[in-house]
């Protein structure tokens, strides 16, 4: 009821929206859904060398109930899809998904009856990261893109934008962007 009255007033709602988005995007706790070799690069992203905590995402939690963003890092088979979806469903809203690497995004080199050809077939995805596996810089770039996306989303009014695609190869310099 309080929120509705704020929305009618206009000005205060937009500013409150900005504060909520700012708070959310700088404290994205990841759910490390590491299910094959991409997980190694995801771990490297959390290591001191790449330091994911620069972006407020160092708190990897192994319970979905404390997570904001699921990083699906690896090959998802049909058998595993039920598990991934169940863990995603257990995450509290608002929640986001990064599809890390070729396998999660498209099945990758596993063009076979057993592998889901892209996890967007059974769950919503916010950022796709190319690469096999992507380098830690690419994952950090995906996280920054997700932060940008969250900053651009209306949080109180609902709605949202489509997925972001991170191309393969050297990511645009993360040091330059974060400066």
């Amino acid at each position, binding site marked *: 009821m309080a929120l509705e009255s704020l929305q009618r007033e206009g000005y205060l709602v937009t500013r409150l929206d900005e504060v909520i988005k700012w708070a959310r995007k700088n404290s994205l706790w990841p759910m490390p859904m590491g299910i094959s070799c991409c997980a190694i690069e995801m771990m490297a992203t959390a290591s001191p060398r790449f330091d994911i905590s620069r972006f407020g995402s160092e708190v990897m939690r192994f319970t979905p109930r404390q997570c904001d963003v699921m990083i699906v890092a690896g090959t998802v088979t*049909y*058998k595993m899809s039920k598990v991934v979806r*169940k863990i995603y469903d257990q995450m509290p809203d608002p929640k986001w998904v990064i599809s890390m690497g070729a396998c999660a995004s498209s099945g990758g080199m596993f063009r*076979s009856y057993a592998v889901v050809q892209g996890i967007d077939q*059974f769950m919503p995805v916010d950022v796709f990261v190319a690469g096999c596996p992507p380098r830690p810089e690419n994952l950090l770039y995906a996280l920054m893109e997700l932060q940008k996306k969250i900053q651009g989303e209306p949080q109180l009014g609902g709605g949202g934008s489509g997925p972001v695609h991170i191309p393969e190869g050297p990511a645009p310099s993360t040091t330059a962007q974060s400066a």
Partner: protein
Amino acid sequence: MNNAEIVEILKRHVPASILAVEEFRGDLTVVVRRDDIVRVAEFIKTDSSLAFDLVIDVLGVDMYRPEERFEVIYIIYSLVNKRFLRLKVRLPEDTPTVPTVTGVWPGANWHERETWDMFGIKFAGHPDLRRLYMPEEFEHHPLRKDFPLMGIPDSLPLPRR
């Protein structure tokens, strides 16, 4: 002990069970009658000079031919003699069933489950013939030659988006 001696012992004790003997680059393969596989397995395990006591693998092959479409291959090792032996059973398409060897080598249990899962070859008398890799409600056998590479649509349901 060399391959000739192994063949000689087999021919002396279980001559009626052996259909063919093949040797390729030192690897010995013995084709066994389907109904006699347990008897032969029992013999080569318990015979003190052969002592084939370890099952390395049990696998299937889809030869995709009109007669005797499937083959089951048992790769057996003797820890005593440090030698391999390959047993082979040929199965027709309409009754792809072979007696289980889990009573002889308990280690064959999961190998036979895998072969059932992938090829649909039944192992009669197996204590727990469930699928090993695919979901239990799956109805096909993916390593058969007539199974399409990308699977059969809707045979593996995904969670709802």
